[in-house]
Every structure is written in structure tokens, then in C-alpha cells.
């Protein structure tokens, strides 16, 4: 197989994978008797056509940046964390407990405390699978899947039996105090000139960007990040170099779980203002697609998260304005994961055929 130039591998492969996913999505739409062009128009208009639409797209993107970064950190340590969903749900529990604990006077005080709660609970939910992987060799993929289900059962129990205020029917916690409401982009001075209507995107978006920068620093500018990546490349070599596998697995998974948990400040604290059942809405799983699409780099993750924010918001618009079911976005998401994550080798082989003659010319 021809080795691809670096730029082709970094840019062309994801773009072509994306294109393939788009083509197959269009085929699906044609097969169910819908017009792909029409669908695209509705999606573009509803997701990026106005500042109001961007307010939704960026809101979803914020959650996906967190979960995408979570998958990325674990991936660099060759750990496939499918448990983002459960960790995000537990993060929501952490946020709810913090927000309901005292009557917070101002969001600037509540936010750091809620972030700690979210990260701690998310990390704690990742800790058990991490420990079992490190000490017992139980496959982390399976244990994190199991923990997703255990998390959702636990959340149902807590919301129905413990957190639900007396006299309320739906399984949800009480409303958080006023002082915990995070400013949305509409309420931030300066940005309110652009976002003239109330939108769900809030200050958490900037926290997500800071987290992305910190993850980059961690992975490529610190000793710990080097150790994680070395462990991910070769466990044996890393162990020989004195890196403790137990420590790396635990630390990488705790950071990963903490990042997943942190997304809860966006949806639970920033948007709904109370803890709902299934608050994370699959964002933990979308993190897998985001990390794959973003080639496990924070910059890529941000771009991919915005792309998936577009898909998520656009898909919702489709469900609202057309007869195309909202489930289309699940199909597109699956196709993107399939082409970028599992069939990437196929794309490389195809590109290899294209690049072969030009390389031969260059050699001659």
C-alpha cells in the first residue's frame, strides 16, 4: 500500500470519509422518497442560517467538545472509553447535587463548584472500569458499556425515588436556585449584539474551548501526556521505560471521565436548570464520532464538534419542518463513525491509488 503524504492523511482522509458518509446519507434519503437537496437546505438554514440557529448549534457543539475530548484523552492511552454517556449522566448528578446544596448567590461562585462536582462524579464513574482494566484485565470497552446501563438504571432510581420533589409527576430533580443560571450568549455584553434572541448556548462554550487547549497542553507539552501517548503506542515499551501501566490507565480514564462529566454544566446547569432523565441525550456516544472525525486532536475535536452540532440541530429542524424523521441524524452519525473509524483503511487504499503515480513522478 502506498504511504500517503502527511497532509493527505490528516485532511484528505477525514474529508473523503465525510463525503462518503454524506453520499450514503443522500442515498438513504432518496430510498425513502425524500429529496437530499431539500433536506440539506432545511438543515443549513436551521443550524447555521442565523445567529439564533448558531445559538443551538454551538450549544450542542459545547457538549460534544467535552465528550470528544474525553474519548481523545483515553484514545491516546489506547483505551476506548465508550462510557462517556454514563459518565456524563453521573456528571449531571454531581452538578445537581452542588446546585441544590445551598442557595447560590451568583453563578460565578456556583460554576466552579458545579464543575468540580461534575468532573468528580464523571471521573468516579470511569474509575471502576479503569481499575478493573488496570488490575484485572477486564476489557474496558465492555465494562464501560455495562456502566452506561448501570448509570441509566441508577439515574432512573435516583430521579424517581430520591431527587424528585414531592408532588411532582415527571422524574426530574427540583429546579436549581436562580443564582446558578449561567449567562447565555444572548446575555453576555458584546455578544448580545449578535445573538439578539435567547439561545441555549452559554458561557460553557468558552470553558469547553479552554478545556480543549488544556488537553492539548496535557497531551503534547507535559510529561504525563507523553507517558499517556507512549503507553498508548506500546504498553511494553512504556513499562520498560519505567512508566507504570496502572497509573497511566487510571489517570487517563479519570481525566476522560472528568471531561465527560463536565459536559453536564452545559446541558444540566446551563440549559435545563434541573436534572432530567437521560439529560445527556447520547452526547457521550457522539463524542466517539467527534474524536474519530477530529483525528484525536483538540483542534480537530472542536471542528468536528461544531460539525456534529450542525448535524444535531439540523436533524432536529428536519424533524420539525419536514416529514423526514429526526432519526436521520442517528444514521448520519453512524455512517460518519463507520467511514472515519472503521473503513478509514479503505479510504487510504483508494487515495493510495491516486497518489501512486504522482509519487513515482516525483522520484523520477
Amino acid at each position, binding site marked *: 500500500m502506498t504511504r500517503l503524504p502527511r497532509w493527505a492523511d490528516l485532511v484528505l482522509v477525514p474529508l473523503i470519509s465525510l463525503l462518503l458518509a454524506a453520499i450514503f446519507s443522500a442515498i438513504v434519503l432518496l430510498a425513502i422518497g425524500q429529496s437530499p437537496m431539500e433536506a440539506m437546505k432545511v438543515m443549513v438554514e436551521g443550524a447555521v442560517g442565523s445567529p439564533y440557529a448558531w445559538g443551538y448549534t454551538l450549544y450542542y457543539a459545547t457538549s460534544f467538545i467535552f465528550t470528544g475530548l474525553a474519548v481523545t484523552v483515553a484514545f491516546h492511552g489506547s483505551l476506548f472509553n465508550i462510557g462517556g454517556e454514563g459518565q456524563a449522566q453521573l456528571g449531571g448528578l454531581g452538578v445537581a447535587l452542588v446546585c441544590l446544596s445551598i442557595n447560590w448567590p451568583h453563578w460565578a461562585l456556583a460554576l466552579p463548584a458545579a464543575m468540580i462536582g461534575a468532573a468528580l462524579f464523571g471521573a468516579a464513574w470511569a474509575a471502576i472500569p479503569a481499575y478493573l482494566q488496570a488490575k484485572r484485565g*477486564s476489557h474496558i470497552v465492555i*465494562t464501560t458499556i455495562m456502566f452506561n*446501563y448501570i448509570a441509566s438504571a441508577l439515574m432512573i432510581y435516583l430521579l424517581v425515588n430520591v431527587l424528585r420533589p414531592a408532588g411532582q409527576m415527571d422524574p426530574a430533580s427540583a429546579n436549581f436556585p436562580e443564582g446558578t443560571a449561567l449567562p447565555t450568549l444572548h446575555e453576555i455584553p458584546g455578544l448580545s449584539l449578535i445573538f439578539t434572541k435567547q439561545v441555549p448556548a452559554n458561557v460553557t462554550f468558552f470553558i469547553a474551548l479552554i478545556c480543549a487547549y488544556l488537553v492539548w497542553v496535557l497531551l503534547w507539552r507535559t510529561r504525563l501526556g507523553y507517558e499517556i501517548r507512549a503507553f498508548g503506542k506500546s504498553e511494553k515499551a512504556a513499562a520498560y521505560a519505567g512508566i507504570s501501566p496502572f497509573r497511566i490507565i487510571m489517570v487517563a480514564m479519570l481525566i476522560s471521565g472528568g471531561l465527560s462529566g463536565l459536559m453536564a454544566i452545559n446541558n444540566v446547569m446551563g440549559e435545563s436548570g434541573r436534572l432530567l432523565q437521560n439529560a445527556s441525550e447520547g452526547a457521550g456516544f457522539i463524542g466517539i464520532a467527534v474524536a474519530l472525525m477530529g483525528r484525536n486532536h483538540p483542534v480537530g475535536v472542536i471542528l468536528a464538534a461544531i460539525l456534529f452540532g450542525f448535524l444535531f440541530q439540523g436533524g432536529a429542524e428536519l424533524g420539525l419542518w419536514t416529514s423526514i424523521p429526526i432519526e436521520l*441524524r442517528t444514521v448520519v452519525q453512524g455512517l460518519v463513525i463507520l467511514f472515519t473509524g472503521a473503513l478509514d*483503511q479503505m479510504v487510504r487504499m483508494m487515495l493510495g491509488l491516486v497518489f501512486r503515480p504522482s509519487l513515482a513522478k516525483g522520484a523520477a
Partner: protein
Amino acid sequence: MDYDTLLQILGASIRFGTPLLLACLAGLYSERAGIFDIGLEGKMLMAAMSTGAVAAITGSVWIGLLAGIAGSLAFALVHGMASITFRGNQLISGVALNFVASGITVLIAQALFRQGGRTPPLSGEGRFNPITLPFAEALSSVPLFGPFYAKVLSGHVILVYVAFLLVPLTWWVLYRTRFGLRLRAVGENPASVDTAGVSVVRLRFSAVIITGVLCGLAGAYMSAGLQAGFGREMTAGRGYIALAALIFAKWRPWAALWATMLFGFLSALSLRPDVISNTIGIDIPGPALDALPYVLTVLALAGFVGRAIPPRAGGEPYVKER
């Protein structure tokens, strides 16, 4: 708990355990050949929708069953292509296919029937009907065994008996045939199989195809046996529970039977909270029972129930030459 209630719960355990058993055996072939399959869930869902849709249109459950197997096979082949031909990441491929299945089943059902992503209710020849085993009437007067035979063993749809027969068949194929020996070998050490002149690719593809067919049966049972028609996300994580059962059973057919029936028993119990609180005197919350299969699997994985060691070459693509 009286004997009659026990029989009811055991009968329900078999009904709930059967799709798990079929999916678990499906996963067993694939994983024994070294192909991890997280996508059992998606294949079951696809088969459930195809069966529900085609059985509703044609009115024949058998044509529906064939459609279900075809739908599941299509997904299995994509998984095979991704993980065998293009040496992609098997876990990611499985996760991706689950997403695709979760969405596309609703899209197709909605496009065909416009009933909010469900298929029309099946009846008569459109679904599998219960079979009364011979002598069920005659034996019912025999104490203890009679009612057990009539209420627990008899009165299920044909796929339940097929699933039970597949257990010894799988055991025989795996441990008593040349194909089975090679299948197990290719999951442990594909290079040795290759050296012996047997095609790794062909073996693995046959395993993936068997997985597709069995998941097809599991899905068809869901929409035309257990229930009458397809509804969105109707498999509700059963593919993952089957995966859990497979690990719990340490990738062995007879143990798979016991594990899936245990998990089926737990599902049957969670529908009867009154029985639990009457029997042991404390209320166990429903979610706790729902979570029990997952907790048990984690315990099994952690090595508290004996060590669960997966096939050694599982999840790794085989590269013939460098």
C-alpha cells in the same frame, strides 16, 4: 410464592431469554473466530424491523423471517468487510453499525407505513404462533412435572425450540467438527491456521455470516414472536445483554444457555415486583433488577466468577504478509 406463580415466571424467563440466547450464540461464532461484535444489537434491530415490515406486507411470517435474516446479514457483511477486508477497528465498526441500525429502522418503517416508525400489528399467519408440545394435555395431571411440562416447556413459538436445539448443535460444531476446530484456532492464532493452508479470510467471513443469520433469528423472534410488530428501539439493549451473557459464559455454548436463561429470569422477575417482595420480604427497586445483568457481567469480567479469558486474537485484524 406458589408453584403456579413460579411456573409463570419460568415460562416468561424462557420467552425473555430466547432472543438473548440466539444473539449470544451469534456472538459466540464471531468472537470465537476473532471478530469482536458489539453490533449484535444493531443486527437484531434490523432483523426485527425487516421481519415486521415484510410479514405485515406479505402476511407470511416465514417470508418475514427470511427478510429479517437478509437484513441482519447485510449488516454482518458490512462488519465483515470493515473488520476483515479493510482491517478496520472492529469495536468502532460495531458501534457505528448500531447507530445506523437504530436510525435506519425507524426511517424505513416510517417511509413504508407512516405509523410513527412502527410496523403494523401482526396477527394470524403474520407472526409465530405458540406450539403445544405433544402430550401436554395428557401429562398435565401428573403432579409437579405435568404442569411444568405444560406451562414452562410447552406453548412457545418455534424459534424458542430452535434456539434450544442450537445449543447442542453449536457445541457439536465447535468441538466435534473440522470447521469448529479451525474456527476456534483462527480466533486464537490465525497465523497457525494460515500456515496450515486454510484461508483466514474465508473462515472469518463464514463466522460473521453465521452471526448474521442467528441475529436474524433473534430479531425475527422479537418482532414476530415475543411481540406483534416492530417498534423503535424495540431490542432495548438486548444485544448488549447478550454480549454480557457471552462473557459471563466464557464463550462456551452450554454456559451461554444458562447465562441467557439467568438473565431472562431476571427480566421476568423485574416484571413481577410483587412476587419478589412477598418472597424475600424486602422491596427491591425495579431499576436495580434491570441493572443486575450488567452488574453480574462486570463481576464476571473482574474475575470474581472465575476468569473470563476472551479468544486471544479477538479484535485484531490478521495481516497475512508484511
